[in-house]
């Protein structure tokens, strides 16, 4: 297993590197200019040129690539063009905690609610409860997130002012003390996490239900019941474990989401997370930031896939990793 993981990690290095190189050239081929903002009446025509000079964009692209390569190999991904020359990893490390706190809460809620609803639906197959949960899940699953988010805001922030409309904290939250500040943060996260997890949980519930239905028809479940085990033990110990296999894949592939952020939610709820960093960087043609983002998300996708494969082997003894 250890050699397998090591081999996969070694393969990942040129893979991520290839992705970065491709990104480097593709963004420079795209129309648009990082200094375009400075091309406007009332601003001297020299400014855009001086800015390009500062960013090193006047060199031929192969030279730019070599310089970039040298810096990256020294671990220096450069400074953001559009965000006041902050080092790109500072920008990312400011946005990551916000994104991660939403994503982790969302993922936990997703899987907890998804699995619970899925199991109930499967155990009570074709009952009213199952149909109700299935239809409700489908209803939410097919709803566009941004629209759902706006509806939730109108309902629970405007008509029934229970939750704040947006932002991470109330005006003046610093004076609440650390615990109060934390509660204020949770209060602000309630709506966005609900929106994200209702949508996600609905999808996971469908998976769990399907996989659970297959498992409870197996002979060993009948055997478990026959030997007099309580229904609880049968479902939770014998059936659920086996039904979790496809869900494990989902967990692995959810890893990049934790870091990449949910753009719509961040825009609507005004959270300064990774989704906005990425999209704003693309619109501003902020090359170093785009590349750093690609690096972070590319690495995580590779790691997420690796983790899913490893977890497979852990939960299913039949799978051998070579």
């Amino acid at each position: 297993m250890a050699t397998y993981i090591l081999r996969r990690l070694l393969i990942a290095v040129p893979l991520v590197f290839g992705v970065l190189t491709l990104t480097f050239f593709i963004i420079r081929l795209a129309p648009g200019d990082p200094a375009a903002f400075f091309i406007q009446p009332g601003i001297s025509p020299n400014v855009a040129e001086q800015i390009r000079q500062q960013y090193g964009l006047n060199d031929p692209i192969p030279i730019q690539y070599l310089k970039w390569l040298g810096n990256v190999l020294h671990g220096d991904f450069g400074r953001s063009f559009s965000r006041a020359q902050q080092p790109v990893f500072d920008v990312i490390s400011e946005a990551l905690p916000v994104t991660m706190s939403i994503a982790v809460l969302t993922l936990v809620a997703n899987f907890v609610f998804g699995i619970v609803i899925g199991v109930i639906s499967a155990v009570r197959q074709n009952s009213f409860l199952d149909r109700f949960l299935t239809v409700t899940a489908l209803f939410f699953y097919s709803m566009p997130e941004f629209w759902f988010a706006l509806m939730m805001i109108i309902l629970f922030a405007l008509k029934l002012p229970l939750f704040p409309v947006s932002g991470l904290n109330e005006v003046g939250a610093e004076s609440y003390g650390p615990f109060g500040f934390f509660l204020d943060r949770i209060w602000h996260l309630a709506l966005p996490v609900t929106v994200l997890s209702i949508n996600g949980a609905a999808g996971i519930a469908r998976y769990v239900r399907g996989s659970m239905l297959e498992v409870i028809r197996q002979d060993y479940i009948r055997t478990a019941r026959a030997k007099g085990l309580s229904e609880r033990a049968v479902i939770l110990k014998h059936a659920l474990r086996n039904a979790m296999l496809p869900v494990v894949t989902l967990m692995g592939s959810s890893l990049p989401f934790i870091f990449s952020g949910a753009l719509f939610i961040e825009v609507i709820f005004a959270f300064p997370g990774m989704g906005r960093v990425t999209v704003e960087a693309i619109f501003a043609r902020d090359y170093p930031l785009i590349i750093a983002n690609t690096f972070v998300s590319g690495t995580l996708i590779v790691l997420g896939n690796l983790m899913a494969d490893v977890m497979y082997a852990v939960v299913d003894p039949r799978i051998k990793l070579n």
Partner: protein
Amino acid sequence: MMTTSNKPRNLLLTLFLLATAAMLSACSKPKGGQQLSASARDTTLVVAMLGDADYLNPVIGSSVTSANISGLIYPSLLQSEFDTSTGLLNYLALEKSLRPVTRGADGARSPKGALARSWSMAPDHKSITYILRSDALWEDGKPVVAGDFKFAYRMYGNPVIASPRQQYLAELLGAEKGAVDFDRAIETPNDTTLVFHFHKPVPEHLALFHTSLTPLPEHVWKEVKPQEFRESKLNMRPVGSGPYRLAGWSKQQEVTLSSNATCVLPKPGNIRRIMFRVVPDYTVRLTQLQTGAVDVVENVKPEDFGAVRKANPGIEVRTVGLRVFDYVGWSNIDHDWYHKTGKVRPHPLFGSPAVRVALTHAIDREAIIDGYLGSYGTVCNTDISPSLKWAYDDTIKPHGYDPALAAMMLEQEGWIPGPDGIRQKNGRKFSFTLYTNAGNDRRNYACVVIQQNLREIGIDCRIEMQESNVFFENLQSRNLDAWMAGWSIGLEIDPLDVWGSDLEKSRFNFTGYRNPRIEQLSELAKSKMRIEDARPYWVEYQQILHRDQPVTFLYWIRETHGFNRRIQGAVLNISGTFYNIDDWTLKPSANAAP
């Protein structure tokens, strides 16, 4: 069987408990939070902004948001006042003003915030001398001295720093040779005397405009190397001396200012804190305005006014204008030919002024205004705003909507309807693509009306939306035959970037329009030492543009901003929404603790 049915019920129960716990933890907070913030809210102004400020440093800050916030943190040499009755900018020092102060009129400002006591312009208009007050202090207690201005101007002019304001230095000694000679151009004989020398006679109003850039504290910044200026950590801790100081800056979330107790420039009313919050989504900004979570939202769309006012009568819509207009650009010259040969020949479709006038007659500008802007739009004739009354020619009669006249003019030009109803001339169909940037509802609406209008007189127009960066690059490299875009005009009229005949130098002459008289008029106007004397030139300028229609000017837009009525004393005018923000006060809420 009993057990089987119990299990899911237990699960459901757990689920319900979990949800309740989450709700409880959530609900217990708001009560405390709202009470606490109710009294804090009475002294806190919250402004919603689209994006974060870039630098809170007057030398390199480039966004309007940055300028608004920097203006509260840093002192200014002069106060400027916009006179709505003439459209002229007035400059005030403590003991002197360029023009009589418009006391009592809308927009009147007190000069108390100015660092200059007075100034004197040399008789030859080649230098200006300021006498500064001696009691203004930087936040760290050091006095604001003339040297701080000279130091800041060196930063503004340093090509490594690439300040977007280096244009302001264009008249200083040495600039005519390519680099300002700061030792000679700016003199500081003592701490309260500041002298600027120009290489040519400069009208007083322009000299005041260009020499009143914001100073930086030299003692704080002098160790910072120019190449590290933009990266410096000092940008996150600005040392100013204005009515507010930076209290906190969470990037991409909010900028918090608190009133500066040591400020000798007039202190703000009862607003102790100003928070600029980043709220990227328009609907959410509007919702926050309605719930009272923010007090000011800029650029509220006309179609939302009704709903906002109904939802919260405490909101008022205030307008600023007229500074922004939309237009349809026609390429006057054949761009392909120009790219290939460097020579100019008229564009096959839009090359003739008569055709362009016909197109303007064919477009129902009133219908676009009625349909989208309502009372917040006015037909636009040229790029001189009706708000600049001293220069605006109100005798110009707009080219009205008249499809029959348009058709007749096109026929006179040889454009005859073909078998498919589309006009043609010498085998060339009158068919083109109208480009605009994606994501602008107003332009989208106008494009569709224009397409319809043109179809009615036998012109085939397709619409294509492009991502803003792509669109702008295409405009700049003159790849588009017809497009819809907009301009936001400056308060100084300087049209050569847009209409200059030298196509390589005039970066914004996207149409390729060339008329030497326009250049002459601009130069003549700029050479007048009294701005009012330039009026005849600007009147002729407007008449030429109206006659030649290098573009079809569509409409001026009155910008509309949502304000909470608890804000008092706010004056809005063409020079900005936050024109006199340091004079604003907040009306206490009825239920606030005494």
